[in-house]
C-alpha cells in the first residue's frame, strides 16, 4: 500500500490531542498495509511539531503563514490538496472536529475522491476498510475503499495516542503562502469560562430533566469540575433553554465516546443513547429504576440525585486530594 498523509490540527501553535489520535490510526493502517505515515501541520508563525515521531509519524511537514494561524477553509484545503498530490498517498486522514468536518469534504471534492467521515476503525484487507457510525450511532457501516485515494475523517476519542521512542523527521513547507480565501476567519471568541469540549473530554458529566431547574445544573458543573470532566446535556434541557446547544449529547447534538460518561437525571431516550452509547463506561443516576438509561449503564444508582450528586462530588474531591 502507498503512504498515509495525516493533517494534524493545531490550536495556538500546539498540536491537539486529536492529531495524535489520527497519527495512531494512520500508524496502524500503514503498518498493516506497508507504507509510511506523513504528517502535515498548517499554522501561523510558530508551531510546535517536534516529537511527533513518537506519536507515529515518519515525517512531518510544517506549513506556516501568518494568515493561517486560524483555520481558513479555502487556503487550508488548497494546501492539503497540494500536499496530497506531492506524495504517493492511499489515504488522507483528518480529525472529525469542527475544523476537520469542514476541511475534509472540501479536500475530497478538490481531489475528486471519496470521503469516509467520522470513522472509528481503520483496517487493511487487500485495501482500506473502515467502520463508521450512521443513524447517529444506531448502526455501523463497514465500507471498502475502491478508489486509489480516499479522505477519511477520524472521530475524536476513537484511537488512543501512541507513545514510542521513534524520532521522525521534520521538514518545512510554505505551500500556504499567498493564498487567499473568500471566507476569512477573523477571530475565535472564547467563552468567559474556558470549558472542555464534550466531544474531546475523557470524562463527561451530563444532566437531564431530572435536575428540574436550570439553576440545579450547578450540581452537574460541580461534579464535572471535581472530575476534570466536560458538561453535557440532554436535548430536553437544551430545548428548554437551560443549557447551550454546544453541550447537547444525542442525535441532534454531539456524539461522544469518553472513557467515563455519567448521566445525571437523564432517562435515556433513544436519541440520547445514540449519542453516548460508545462511551467506555457509563454511570446512570436516576430516581426511576425503570429508566432506559439503566439498560446501557455499567453502574447505576437509583435515588434522589439532589442527595447523591453532592455526596459523590465530595468523595471525588477527597479522593483527588489524597
Amino acid at each position, binding site marked *: 500500500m502507498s503512504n498515509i498523509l495525516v493533517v494534524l490540527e493545531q490550536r495556538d501553535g500546539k498540536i491537539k490531542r486529536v492529531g495524535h489520535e489520527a497519527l495512531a490510526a494512520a500508524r496502524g493502517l500503514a503498518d498493516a498495509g506497508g507504507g509510511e505515515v506523513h504528517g502535515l501541520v498548517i499554522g501561523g508563525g510558530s508551531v510546535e511539531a517536534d516529537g511527533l515521531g513518537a506519536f507515529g509519524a515518519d515525517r512531518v511537514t510544517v506549513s506556516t503563514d501568518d494568515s493561517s494561524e486560524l483555520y481558513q477553509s479555502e487556503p487550508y484545503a488548497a494546501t492539503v490538496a497540494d500536499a496530497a498530490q506531492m506524495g504517493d498517498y492511499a489515504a488522507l486522514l483528518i480529525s472529525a472536529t469542527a475544523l476537520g468536518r*469542514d476541511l475534509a*469534504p472540501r479536500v475530497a471534492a478538490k481531489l475528486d475522491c471519496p470521503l469516509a467521515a467520522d470513522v472509528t476503525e481503520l483496517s487493511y484487507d487487500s485495501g482500506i476498510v473502515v467502520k463508521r457510525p450512521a443513524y447517529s450511532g444506531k448502526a*455501523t457501516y463497514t465500507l471498502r475503499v475502491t478508489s486509489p485515494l480516499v479522505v477519511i475523517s477520524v472521530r475524536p476519542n476513537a484511537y488512543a495516542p501512541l507513545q514510542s521512542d521513534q524520532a521522525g523527521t521534520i521538514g518545512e513547507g510554505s505551500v500556504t503562502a499567498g493564498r487567499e480565501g473568500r471566507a476569512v476567519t477573523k477571530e475565535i471568541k472564547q467563552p468567559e469560562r474556558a470549558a472542555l469540549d464534550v466531544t474531546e473530554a475523557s470524562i463527561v458529566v451530563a444532566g437531564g430533566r431530572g435536575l428540574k431547574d436550570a439553576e440545579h445544573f450547578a450540581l452537574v458543573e460541580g461534579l464535572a469540575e471535581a472530575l476534570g470532566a466536560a458538561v453535557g446535556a440532554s436535548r430536553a434541557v437544551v430545548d428548554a433553554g437551560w443549557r447551550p446547544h454546544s453541550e447537547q449529547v444525542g442525535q441532534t447534538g454531539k456524539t461522544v465516546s469518553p472513557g467515563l460518561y455519567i448521566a445525571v437525571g437523564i432517562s435515556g431516550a433513544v436519541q440520547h443513547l445514540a449519542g453516548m452509547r460508545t462511551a467506555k463506561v457509563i454511570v446512570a443516576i436516576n430516581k426511576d429504576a425503570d429508566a432506559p438509561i439503566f439498560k446501557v449503564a455499567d453502574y447505576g444508582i437509583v435515588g434522589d440525585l439532589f442527595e447523591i450528586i453532592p455526596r459523590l462530588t465530595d468523595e471525588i474531591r477527597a479522593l483527588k486530594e489524597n
Partner: protein
Amino acid sequence: MKLAVCIKRTPDTETRIKIAGDGKRIDEAGVKFVLNTYDEYAVEEALQLKERAGSGEVVVVTVGTEASQETIRTALAMGADRGVLLKVDGASIDPLPVAKALADELRGGEYDVVLFGKLAIDDYSHATGPMVAELLGVPCVSAVAKLEIADGKGTAEREIEGGVEVVEFSLPAVITADKGLNEPRYPALRGIMMAKKKPLEVKDVALADGGLEIVELALPPERQEGRIVGEGADAVPALIDALRNEAKVL
C-alpha cells in the same frame, strides 16, 4: 435575493433501526421519514433572508427517490417557492456523487446563497455542503449558528471546540446550518394547501460512481446490562469503588 436550499429525506430521530435482509441498508418498513432536522434550520433561514431582502426566490433541491417529493412539499409548505427533485434509483454512501449532482443543478442558477443542514441525521457525513461549495468554486461556512448578510457579504459564527469562530465571507456562498440558527416555523394549514400547487420539477439523474462500497450495515454490539450498585447517597462509596477498582476509570 435568490436562494437555494438542499434538503434530504431522513428517518425520524425517534426511529429504531432495523437492518434489511441484505445486511447493507436499513429496513424501511414502518419507518417514518421526515425532512432532515438540520435542513429545517436551513429552510427557515432561507425564508427569513428572502423576507428581509423584500423579494427573491427560495428553491428547494434534493437528490432522492420518488418518495422525496413529500419532503420537498414539507419545505414548500413552510414557504419555499418551488422544488426540484433530482430523481435517482438508489443512494450513495460516498457523498461526492450526490454533491456533484447538486452542483450540476445549481451551477448557473445565480444563487446568492445556497443553504444546507450541517449534517444529515442518517449518514452523518457533514459533507455535501462544503463539497458543493468546492465544486461551484464559492466560499462556504459550515455549522453556522448565527448569520448576518447585507450588501453582498456576510458574517457567520460557528461553534468550534471551546469557542466560536467568527467568519466573514463574500457572496455567493454556501452556508450549512446548525441548531440554534433560528426557530423553524411549522407549516400552517394554508401553507400545506398552497404547497400542493407550487411547482415541483422532477429530473432523472444518474449518480456518478462513488469510491466506497458497503460491506455491511450492522447494529452496534449491545451493551451488556450493568448493575445497580445501590440506592440513594449511601451507594456512592460502592460506585466509587467500582469505578476505581473494576472499571479503572478513576
